[in-house]
């Protein structure tokens, strides 16, 4: 579904991605693991068009998309749920969700999606009129995921959804991801919490200072000594 071929990206003079190649197959959960500053978020930013690669190709369903603008990428149903959630704090929960449906033309579909999101996260329905800035961290993450789902993503990219959340809450978020996969969505998950991410993923890549250093089936990587030592705490 999505393929990166030798993608290179610079911030100023700093080379953040030194030629990343990876592939995400339709209907799977693929995760990208790595330490802070390894280039995980940058990889997502390159795909969603927030930053542009200066070299390499990004293919979505065999079409080159590395030079497209963010709104063009969103129209292709590649939805990026950013690190730190990036909600619209002054808008209500409902308005945040409607902003997520900005590219949707079909009003009935928007309504259905809205109902689905409220069903998935009932707490959001209770707080639909509250402004997003007043929600707790867990609720905000639910809203961020819900907002991303409003646009009917074909590929959903999540940047560290577990960040700063209590285990019980991020388990709930991860359960939602498994549920979404069952519905046929493709998910690209970026995480520091390698253990949790590997448990729900099919395939995994590990990135270190801008390069992919290891890849494999998630259940195999869980047993891999190098991964254990570096990312699973020995």
């Amino acid at each position, binding site marked *: 579904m999505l393929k990166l071929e030798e993608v290179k990206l610079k911030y100023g003079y700093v080379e953040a991605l030194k030629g990343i190649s990876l592939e995400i197959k339709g209907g799977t959960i693929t995760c990208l693991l790595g330490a802070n500053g390894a280039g995980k978020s940058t990889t997502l930013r390159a795909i*969603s*068009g*927030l930053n542009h690669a200066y070299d390499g190709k990004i293919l979505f369903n065999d079409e080159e998309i590395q030079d497209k*603008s*963010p*709104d063009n*990428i*969103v*129209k292709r149903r590649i*939805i*990026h*749920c*950013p690190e730190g959630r*990036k*909600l*619209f*704090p*002054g*808008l209500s929960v409902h*308005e945040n969700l*409607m*902003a*997520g449906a*900005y*590219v949707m033309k079909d009003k009935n579909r928007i309504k259905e999606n809205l109902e689905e999101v409220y069903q998935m996260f009932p707490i959001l329905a209770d707080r639909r009129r509250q402004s997003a*800035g007043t929600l707790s961290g867990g609720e905000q993450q639910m809203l961020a995921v819900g*907002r991303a789902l409003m*646009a009917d993503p074909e590929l959903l990219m999540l940047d560290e959804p577990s960040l700063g959340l209590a285990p019980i809450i991020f388990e709930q978020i991860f359960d939602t991801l498994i549920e979404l996969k069952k519905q046929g969505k493709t998910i690209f998950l970026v995480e520091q919490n390698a253990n949790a991410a590997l448990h729900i993923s099919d395939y995994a890549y590990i990135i270190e200072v801008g390069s992919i250093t290891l890849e494999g089936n998630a259940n195999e990587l869980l047993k891999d000594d190098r991964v254990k030592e570096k990312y699973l705490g020995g």
Partner: protein
Amino acid sequence: MQQLIFGLRDGSLFALVALGLVIIHNTTGVLNFAYGHMGMFAAYITFSCYAFFGFPLVLAILTGLVFAVIIGILTEKFLLRPIRHLSHSAMLIITLGMLMTLEGFALLIWKQDTRQLPNLITGRPLIINIQDTMLVITRQDLLIFVLTAVIVFGTFFYLKYTKLGLAVRASSQSEEAAKLMGIPVGGVYGFAWGFGTALSALAAILAAPKTYVHPNMMVNLQIQGLTAAVLGGFDSLPGAIVGGLLLGVIEQFVGEYISAELKMAFALIIIICLLMIKPSGILGKSSKGRV
């Protein structure tokens, strides 16, 4: 009472100016120094269409407003967007440059002379008798009230209940998140600049019968609009309106009871005092994100 009406009339104009300033600032994060002068230029266009080319007044005004929208959009697209990633001050400097350029061009084209635009509507003023006091409201003043009210409520309604309105509010809160929703943020900025500049033009045209049309006609209104915006809390649209009306009334009363020459200075002093008590303005919240 009569003073109150004059105050509210002036305040309506301040509110219009403030509304446009705040819309541009909230959406794009830029304080537009050239804002008043862009309106001034549009007033000159209106004047030229009316006096030189013999357009009917209403058509001349529409031409002026359309011109304002275009100049607003072009400024954003070609002068500000290319340097958006550089720094906030770079954009401020650009608007300062615009201010001087527009003033220069206005002097070059229309010379120093003051020109006049007629009242939009004339006729017998409205006279209301309340017991012993008689209130006089001219038709032009009435028009200013009505237009301001229509625009203010129209804007609120539009921002609150339409899809583009949601896009504007979303972009003003987080540019990056708005992009990730597929909102064409550039288009939203263009809209804010076009609409905001049109408000400045409208204020200039409405004020023109009193201030006359000349290159510095909007200098005071720009300061008053800015003051109104600060008074109202700067990030709040209702605040801009309340601030505008309040400033109008304060100035009028200062002018009447203290000193006509010093009314602006006194009004500013009062506002400084108000802001010392409540620094975030009347309806402002403490800062949320925007620089």
